């Protein structure tokens, strides 16, 4: 009896002693966030993942750029297939569109979380200072870019700049405050990022990462949006003066596979995609919508959704005659109201349209020229403005315009047209239209909407905040009218 008691006592003691080990939760296939951030490779893996998160397939910047911006104007239409339904958005009527809820909102905030994680974790790492500063600069740049889209599409949003101690009620901040954050982020990025030439020397693996010129261009875009014309113009000037960019000679060829990578002199920042279907190598989703025209054998094998998103007859007919840029569109003979198919991004022979490898040009040199032109026009310098416009027109095979033929208003209107012709399906359209022709934007909404009289056309200038987001964060308030 005694023996047994002794043995059980020892056994119990041993059990309790070893329990700490037994009760430690083992992690297989993952690693603790605390242990991860050690080497330079870890920091690099982090920033590359932040890039991937930002561009990512169905949820990243590329797909929502063209859905929100291009389908938001008469440049694009359609988009009804299976469960991806943009018709509530393009019709501007009825039930709120669902894609902000399942697409934009969670993915964009996750991107911000990625950037914030890097900004929290990387500063304390003992790694090469130059590498560290570059990665931090990139994180600031990515965060600014995502906030820029959020504030443009939804109005003022909460500002989250850290991953620790986040309160569970996050009120919306003003648009001005959001822009202050964006501007500060981009300025840090500009100070810490390599110029294009330095980036090229870092090798092909860094293709798609931000350069100093890329963030300067982003900041120019921000200033243009804010009406800070001279600062915009100055930044455009410094990108131009870097001497590292020029217009490609052939507009359409610019989007070809042959012109992907550093031998494209015009692209300032690109969302690079690789053909494939695995979730890790997400392709350019836009391609899935390209038309499988009987007349265009390239697209013969294309997926059935092809042609679901189209351009419109009115946009197609708005081009000046002889404009080479219109070759990116194709008027089919299928007898529908808007038989205008998108051929700007060539078919990727490796895929059926889904997950194509086409790169998505986010900022091009032509944008710098036209942004500068717009800023100069606003600063009452039409001569120099027209000068920049004509560079873009020349490449499109069009004769130059004359400053004398325009007053300030009509020149701005022409710049809007030029931007539409130049950048269709590159994710600029609605932002440009709201900035340069707000009345025209409202007219477009009224033409499409069956309920604008009830709710007001103005409500459609912003996207509604998703139901789920409002429910999860009591600090959010819905946009007016929704």
């Amino acid at each position, binding site marked *: 009896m005694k023996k047994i008691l002794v043995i059980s006592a020892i056994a119990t003691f041993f059990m309790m002693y070893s329990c700490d080990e037994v009760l430690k*939760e083992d992690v297989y296939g*993952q690693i*603790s966030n605390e242990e991860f951030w050690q080497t330079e490779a870890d920091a690099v893996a982090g920033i590359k*993942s932040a890039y*991937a998160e930002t561009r990512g397939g169905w949820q990243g910047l590329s797909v929502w750029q063209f859905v929100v911006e291009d389908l938001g104007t008469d440049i694009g239409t359609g988009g009804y297939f299976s469960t991806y339904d943009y018709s509530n958005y393009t019709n501007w009527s009825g039930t709120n569109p669902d894609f902000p809820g399942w697409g934009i909102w969670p993915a964009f905030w996750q991107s911000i979380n990625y950037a914030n994680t890097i900004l929290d974790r990387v500063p304390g790492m003992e790694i090469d200072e130059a590498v560290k500063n570059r990665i931090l600069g990139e994180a600031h740049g990515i965060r600014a870019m995502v906030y820029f889209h959020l504030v443009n599409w939804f109005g003022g949003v909460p500002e989250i700049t850290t991953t620790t101690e*986040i309160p569970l009620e996050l009120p919306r901040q003003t648009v001005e405050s959001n822009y202050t954050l964006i501007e500060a982020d981009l300025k840090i990025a500009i100070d810490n990022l390599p110029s294009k030439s330095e980036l090229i020397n870092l090798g092909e*693996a860094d293709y798609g990462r931000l350069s100093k010129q890329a963030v300067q261009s982003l900041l120019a875009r921000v200033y243009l949006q804010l009406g800070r014309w001279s600062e915009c113009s100055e930044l455009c000037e410094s990108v131009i003066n870097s001497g590292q960019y020029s217009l490609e000679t052939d507009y359409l060829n610019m989007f070809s596979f042959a012109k992907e990578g550093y031998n494209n002199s015009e692209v300032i920042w690109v969302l690079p995609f690789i053909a494939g279907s695995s979730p890790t190598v997400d392709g350019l989703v836009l391609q899935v919508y390209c038309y499988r025209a009987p007349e265009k054998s390239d697209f013969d094998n294309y997926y*059935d959704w092809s042609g679901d998103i189209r351009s419109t007859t009115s946009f197609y007919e708005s081009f000046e005659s002889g404009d080479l840029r219109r070759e990116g569109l194709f008027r089919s003979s299928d007898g529908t109201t808007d038989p205008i198919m998108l051929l700007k991004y060539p078919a990727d022979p490796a895929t059926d349209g889904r997950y194509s490898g086409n790169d998505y040009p986010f900022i091009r040199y032509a944008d710098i020229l036209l942004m500068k032109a717009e800023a100069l026009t606003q600063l009452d310098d039409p001569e120099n403005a027209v000068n920049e416009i004509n560079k873009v027109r020349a490449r499109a095979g069009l004769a130059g315009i004359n400053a004398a033929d325009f007053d300030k208003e009509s020149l701005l209107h022409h710049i809007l047209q030029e931007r539409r012709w130049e950048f269709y399906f590159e994710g600029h359209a609605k932002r440009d239209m709201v900035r340069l022709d707000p009345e025209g934007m409202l007219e477009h909404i009224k033409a499409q909407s069956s309920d604008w009289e009830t709710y007001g056309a103005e409500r459609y200038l912003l996207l509604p905040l998703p139901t789920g987001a409002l*429910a999860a964060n009591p600090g959010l308030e819905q946009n007016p009218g929704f």
Partner: protein
Amino acid sequence: MKKTLSFITFLFLLFSAARSQQLTVTGVVTDEHGAGLPGVNIVEKGTTNGSTTDVEGNYSLTVKNSSSTIQFSFVGYLDDEIQVGDLTRIDVKMVEDLMRLDDVVVVGYGTAKKSDLTGAIASVKPKDLNASGISNAAQMLQGRVTGLYINSHNQNPGATPDFVLRGASSFQTGEAGQPLIVIDGFPMENTASINTINPNDIEQIDVLKDASATAIYGSRGANGVIIITTKQGNQKGLQVDYSTRLFTQTQARRIDVMNGGEYARFYYDLAHDPNLQVGTWGPENGYPHHFTAWDTLDNTDWQNEVLNTNNYSQEHNLSLSGVREGVKYRAAANYYDAKGIIAPTAYTRLNALARLDYEFRKFSFNLDFNFTNELKNNTSNSYERAVGFSPSTSVYDANGDLSPHAFESIRSWFYNPLFPGEAEEAFQEINTTRIAAGMSYEILPGLRASVKGGFNQINEESFYQRFEPFYDSQTETEAYISAYSNRQLYGDAFLNYTKQFGNHKILVMAGGTYQNYRRRGLWSSAMDFPYVNLGYYNIDAGLLEREMGSSWNEKRQVSGLARINYDYKNKYLVTVNYRLDGATVFGDNSKWGHFPSFGVAYRIDQEDFFRDGVPFLTALKLKAGYGIAGNANIPSFRTQNLIDFNPVHEGNGVTNGILWVSPVTREGDSQRTTYLPNPDLHWETTYTFNSGFEVGNEKFYTEINYYHTNHDQLILDRQVPAETGFNYITLNKGAMTNQGVEAKIDFFLDFLNHELKWRPGIIFSYNKNIITDLDDDQILGFAVWIDRTLYGYAGIKQEGYPLNAVWGYDFTGIWQADETEEASVYGAEPGDPKFADIHGIDEDGNITEGPDGQITEEDKMFLGDANPEFTAGITNQLNYKNWELSFFWEGVFNKTVVNASKATLVYPSYNYGTNKMRLALDRWTATNPSDEVPSLTKSIPENLILSDWVVEDASFIRLRDISLTYKLNFKEDAKIKNLHIYASVSNLWTYTKYTGINPDVWGVDDMEIDDNNDANDDMLPFARSYTIGLKASF
């Protein structure tokens, strides 16, 4: 006679006085009808001096003196005690133990007599029920255990049951709110394991309800414990049992949809309605078809077409049981082949079991082996599709192929409901092997040591392939395979000590347990297979979307536990439990939990004053208990801040990438639900007070319990703003109470000189659930999704309301033509739904009374609780000669359901072109001023789907089972000992006001089953089944 007796007594008295007070008592022991009982044990109390009755029930026993007490005991009869006093002849009429007070109840790591229990434990013995229509253990408990509600919305054969024991116990959904299942002492990882036990092998099921009973299971006891004990080997000789049944099902409820003509007319009228604002439909876009005549259209009843034509199911059981050279053995095999009501849903189960028990000197050994093979056909069952498919489409076209949708050509994903049966194959095979062994040794008299160990290995393999696309834009063939291996290890060691001294009896049990659970999985998928015969047979032949993955996850738990039972004179009973638990899933700062409990009982029926004073009652017991149990059922990694790895592409290649979506359990699901890590996560604690009484006699037995449970530090997934980059955080928060009363009354009524026996039993349970504290927070529940659109949350969890409260707007009718002005205040037009504008909100954010011209969150009102308030069951068993008739009524009351499918089955904007309920024909138009159905010319208004237009009371009463059995008993030496033949019907009759397909759904009814266990997502219609069967013993 009396005279003679007194004379004899007188003589005996004289005689005994002369013989130094030793007494010999004789008598006859009879049953309640006067027939002699052979083999009754007769013992002089407190001694080993005893005897038994002979064939006629006569006995004789010599006792010390007149103060001796004689105890009479016999299996199935109540014990009796008589003090000898002056008597020398004691005739005893024993009372049958209809109340089963002497039955053995499994209390967790031990057993007790029912009469000695201090906690709330219900026992069900299959041999007492007419278990004719039963295919899993849960069905044996349904409607028979007070406080337990098992909903049957998932009618897939082989589905895992969904238990609610004494109200909602956890904020977490799924397994975390489910009771612990213990099979022969082996605690299972989840409730699905209930399918791995053949109901025919079950000796009894004990349901531990209150914390004074469940605390012995510590951190897994908070939701109650269901202990299943299998049959042991027969004590006598070899016995062979065979039973079989055949059954078929019919659809007990249908959705009332339009016929071909109504359907075509409905869409024709709608398309020509000038107010139509749904998408781009309308005559100018080719909608609808130009029907020339409404009555010559095809009229296909799709709900009928998808019914399983080969709907015959069967079950066979064979068991051998006996004892040989001291080894008690039992082996059994079960084959169950069930067809779902909708083709091709099917489930087969093959189960084999062996059990050996052996006692040798001071040792005892036992060995359990159980193997189960389950095969589930997971092909889409198409019922929901059938409800909506156009009735004007014939089943087959002129070529004999399945017809496409006659009405919709562009949106071709409205494919023929019979198509999945031709185009895809999906099944899951689960093999479960459980082996356990135990031994014990009697160290000293009264002191016993035991060890037990075992493992449970569950291998789940799933296969899916599609040969043809379901709709045009789905071009490729597709295949998916996965294999998950779950291994559970269990070990325990205990010391048991029993000691009786005088009137005191003490039982002490102490020991420890170890549990280890490991789950690992592999999966792969691919698309575009060049030949039909590749698919899941050869998945690497797929050309596109080739994906793969693996996962690995382990949990462990260690515990120490002890129990003391103290019994004074069989009258006062005390039980004290204590358990210490540690688990890996909890945060570093709170790895250990303590779970004490105690219970007391007072058996008034053992008091002399009661026996003398209340002769008409034979049993009366009062009991009370208090205990603490926990809930540790949370997924792994919620406390850890982890990084996952996934390649990303860089410039032109692929590189290492990381995802900080963690903590995440890596499974095949690509849904990235992300959780903010919470290192402080700890146990959810449940404090239960339970009190009750039992009272009965030979005519009735009743047990009534009152309980009050406080759930504290609840584990819940709180939504976090998506702006943080995460979706949820798992944390401990708030408190909740469940209060309730449970009553059970059994009657034992005999008529016609005991030839007709009637045994009605009534159970009744009432539960009130309230969240008492949530730090003024609100947690959302009952998300209403239609396709990808979240229409909002019908559930708001907040203080002062039930956990599963349903909230919504008050639908007050339809805006009529003469109310245009009022309607416009709310942005509505005539024909739109109208809602009560109860509250507003002022500039400071305060809620104001009265209308404010807007329908906002503040206008939502509490519409009910998704859990039933009352449940009741009435069992009836009538025996007359060889016949037995039993029927079982079940009632579920005050249960609220969000019938979201009502909106999708009425509104054409949802899947425009699909068939709708006849209710839609009553839609509001200028000439039909309906007050029930809106104009339907717009999309489904979000407010409508969150209003009492769709929220319904789903109370119901049903005749769950009725069966008639003819029993033939043969002589002991006959080749067949007995033979039972029966026929039964389940769900013969149901009464409910609920308009959905099955009133027994829970929460949001979107005609889909939301538990993650079944790939087969569509709900099956409510079924009625007809069974015939026989049982024979050899």
